[in-house]
């Protein structure tokens, strides 16, 4: 507010007063006029040089000019708004010059202490440099306005709080509304109610200075939603306050694309069902230790391989899609159906007890049993279903899935198309088996699996010509574990490779040690058993490496393969055997006569020896010599040698020699012994 008029200091010397007056009178930068009331009219009674220059009047003309003529916009009584008696006044006014032109000025009017006279100072409202600055500023603002107006980026401009002063066309198109509907706080209605708080939080932060961004759904006029990221920047206008500039990125399409990618990562492309990853997440997200009501159903289609092999993979895929559809429409709302892999599916149910889960499984079984027409053939799909409901014993989500997998295998083992609920005993057995696998792995790593060697004798002179390596596992707690158990376990759990290598290497090492100890009296050959699962391209290099490592000739080794192993994939077995035979390693078929092998195949296999199974040897005591005799005769006809296993008595030995068996092996002849005992045994025999 203007300060009240202060009377001039009375004690200024006349010299100073006249000096100031002179300076004011001749100044051409100051514009000064004095007005007085003359005959009831306010008139100009004095002016300085600056006033005559600005107004263009002659000094005399100006000295009688009515104030109202100078300020034509002050009509009627309004002159007294300028010529106030008690206080100074300030007005923006146009003043009329001698030529009639109007010049914008600020008039500052100060009354004299008497109240009859006023000093008027005229200050041109704007000078050239201010006008130039303003023009530049205006041009900047227009450029900015044009830029945002034409920009394809939806843009908001707030000058105060959440109130928008401006929105561009891109934003209007984004939300499908006109600018008038959006200005002020109108735009807030386009922000999804659930997201508005987050937007305001950001605006609060941005108005305080700095930047911010919020993800918000914008609701278009037609009710559809667009998901956007709104980026806010602080905007301060001096003398006005704080606002923001908001730019909007519509990320709806990007999110949809990402969602598609995420869906693809978590779903099976063929059936569209959640895959194993999502299944694990789903179960983990619902599993709480000690909880209950969570059930998993593991389904494995019976005979799916038959469909694939007979009708082709396209039909197989078609069947899987049909099964997926049936599962989806059979389960309860909220249940998850996942494709576990191949022809395996898992259903996860919540809030169920065992009986409910079994009911779901039965319903699924019934739904699947409806015929499906594939390639012109009606197929009735059946599944083996394993059911597990969470118990206190489940400590992790994956145990639940593993248990229903076990239950499914039990169902399968019990005959196809069955439903099995995993019981306590089965779970205990499965866990026990898992523990044993872990212990077997450790035993192999620590070479706790030891080898015993059983001598093999020639029937001709009863001399000992070779030994068979027999793996033994003495468990710290369980005692001796049968090879039948741990070899099968190794085959199931992928440990057969390491176990086989251990046996091969240890046997070779032992042979080399015997050679060093016994010289010519050492066993000439060792027979090593090889599992069907080892009959692949790795076997040959492994044998070569073991022989090389222990500096042994290939003839010192005989590889024994069971008849059934050979029959699994005869062509590939033959290729592996041929490689070994070419190396110089001997090859024997173990347990011959138990595997229904084709004699035609046998003829083409590069083997040296048949081992007559101990069951046929045992029959000899009961007078049944037929099979042993036939096997021995067959070998002879094929030019192969024979080893009869399980010779328990001297009579059996004699009978076998009479039948023509080349070699004998059995408890009655020599028991399996440690490497050390074997060395002593051979040393004694040599003497």
């Amino acid at each position, binding site marked *: *507010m203007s300060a009240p008029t202060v009377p001039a200091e009375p004690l200024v010397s006349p010299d100073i007063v006249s000096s100031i007056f002179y300076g004011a009178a001749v100044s051409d930068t100051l514009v000064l006029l004095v007005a007085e009331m003359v005959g009831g009219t306010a008139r100009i009674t004095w002016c300085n040089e600056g006033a005559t220059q600005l107004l263009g009047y002659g000094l005399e003309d100006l000295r009688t000019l009515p104030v109202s003529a100078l300020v034509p*916009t002050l009509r009627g*009584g309004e002159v007294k708004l300028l010529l106030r008696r008690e206080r100074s006044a300030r007005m923006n006014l146009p003043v009329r010059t001698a030529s009639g032109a109007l010049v914008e000025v600020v008039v500052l009017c100060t009354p004299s202490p008497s109240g009859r006279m006023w000093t008027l100072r005229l200050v041109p409202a704007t000078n050239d440099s201010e006008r130039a600055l303003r023009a530049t500023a205006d041009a900047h603002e227009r450029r900015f306005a044009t830029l945002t107006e034409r920009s394809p980026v939806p843009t908001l401009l707030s000058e*105060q709080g959440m109130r928008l002063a401006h929105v561009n066309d891109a934003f209007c198109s984004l939300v499908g509304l006109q600018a008038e509907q959006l200005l002020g706080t109108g735009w807030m209605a386009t922000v999804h109610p659930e997201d508005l708080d987050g937007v305001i939080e950001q605006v609060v932060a941005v108005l305080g200075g700095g930047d911010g961004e919020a993800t918000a759904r914008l609701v278009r006029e037609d009710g559809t939603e667009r998901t956007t990221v709104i980026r806010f920047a602080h905007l301060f206008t001096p003398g*006005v306050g704080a606002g923001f500039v908001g730019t909007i990125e519509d990320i709806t399409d990007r999110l949809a694309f990402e969602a598609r990618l995420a869906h693809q990562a978590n779903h099976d492309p063929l059936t569209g069902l959640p895959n194993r990853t999502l299944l694990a997440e789903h179960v983990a997200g619902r599993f709480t230790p000690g909880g209950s009501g969570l059930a998993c159903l593991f389904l494995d289609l019976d005979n799916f391989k038959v469909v694939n092999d007979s009708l082709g993979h396209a039909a197989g895929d078609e069947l899987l899609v049909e099964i997926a559809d049936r599962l989806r429409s059979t389960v309860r709302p909220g249940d998850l159906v996942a494709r576990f892999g191949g022809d395996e599916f898992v259903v996860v149910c919540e809030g169920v007890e065992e009986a409910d889960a079994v009911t779901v499984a039965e319903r699924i079984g019934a739904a699947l049993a409806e015929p499906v027409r594939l390639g012109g053939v009606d197929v009735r799909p059946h599944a083996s279903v394993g059911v597990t409901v969470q118990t206190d014993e489940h400590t992790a989500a994956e145990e639940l899935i593993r248990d229903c997998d076990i239950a499914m295998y039990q169902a399968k083992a019990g005959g196809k198309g069955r439903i099995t609920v995993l019981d306590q005993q089965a779970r205990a057995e499965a866990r026990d088996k898992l523990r044993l696998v872990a212990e077997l792995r450790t035993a192999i790593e620590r070479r706790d699996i030891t080898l015993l060697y059983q001598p093999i004798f020639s029937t001709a002179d009863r001399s000992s010509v070779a030994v068979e390596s027999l793996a033994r596992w003495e468990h710290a707690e369980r005692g001796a574990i049968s090879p039948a158990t741990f070899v099968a376990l190794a085959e199931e759990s992928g440990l057969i490779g390491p176990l086989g290598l251990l046996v091969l290497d240890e046997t070779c090492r032992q042979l080399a040690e015997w050679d060093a100890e016994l010289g010519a009296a050492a066993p000439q050959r060792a027979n090593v058993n090889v599992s069907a699962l080892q009959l692949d391209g790795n076997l040959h290099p492994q044998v070569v490496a073991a022989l090389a490592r222990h500096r042994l000739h290939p003839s010192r080794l005989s590889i024994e393969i069971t008849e059934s192993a050979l029959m699994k994939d005869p062509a590939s077995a033959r290729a592996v055997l041929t490689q070994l035979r070419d190396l110089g390693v001997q090859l024997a078929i173990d347990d011959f006569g138990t595997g229904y092998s084709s004699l035609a195949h046998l003829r083409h296999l590069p083997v040296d020896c048949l081992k007559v199974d101990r069951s046929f040897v045992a029959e000899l005591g009961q007078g049944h010599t037929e099979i042993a005799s036939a096997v021995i005769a067959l070998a002879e006809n094929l030019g192969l040698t024979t080893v009869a296993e399980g010779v328990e008595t001297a009579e059996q030995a004699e009978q076998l020699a009479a039948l023509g068996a080349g070699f004998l092996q059995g408890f009655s002849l020599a028991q399996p012994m440690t490497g050390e005992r074997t060395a002593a045994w051979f040393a004694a025999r040599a003497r």
Partner: protein
Amino acid sequence: MTGRAVTQHPMTPRPMTLARLTSPGAAVPATLAPAPTFDLEGVLASIDTMAAQKPVAAQIVSVANSDDTSAAALAQILAADVALASRVMKLANSAYFGMRGRVTSLQFAVTVVGFTTVRTMATVAVTDLDDESRLPADFWRTSTSVALAASTLAPRFGERPQDALCLGLLAPLGVALLHHNDQEGYAELSAAEPTATGRRAAEVRRYGIHAYRLTAVALEQWGFARSMVAPLAAVDDLSDGDAGLLRAALELAARLTVADHQAVPMERLTRGLLREDAVPPVMDRVRAEAEELRLAMLGQ
């Protein structure tokens, strides 16, 4: 643009109207008794007296227009006037600014409502406009409607909405001053002149100045920007584009608040800048927000 001559346009049929401050149908005397002792200078001087009684508000009025004023400085002064400070807080949290109660500090409130608005509220306090008992009936309903209409329409006229809001809020200050100083005479005058133009002419006859011009003088005296002062002075000059927004806002508010108001075409008032078909949504907005703004301005 500028303080142009405040000219009347008797030949222009119904150039504009303003909310009538008396009920429609009141008796209209043929002539008004002259105001025997009306002293315009006295009225203006009375503002200074009022300012002296509310020093904090007066200080805000004088500093808030400075370009180097900060929200912190303004908040610091404002804190000394609890009533005014609480009104600013309330306004900042009102639906008008859309902040939904997030404004918890005075400084932030100043930032949100803006310096001009704080200054306007201080002006309201200085001039006792916050005391409805001393104002013409429906004063705030009218002024908030004018303010919201001006603010909503501002972008069309290239004006800042916030400045337009403040202009609208303060425009009727002159009416309040005249009413305050000559309650009976002003009531008679308003009743006798149903149109805004006629009333302004009557005001000039009785007081030597019309109410908006008086507002302009007061605001100019306090150093309000010319952009706020000039439209008030030129409100009757239809050739003046700068006053178009104010005319449109006054007309729109009159349509909302005066029962028998006879509409004046917007195109004529705004030199074609505002078409009638754009008016209804703005009226809806103003109708919806006016009461909230009134309550916030009065701290109720």
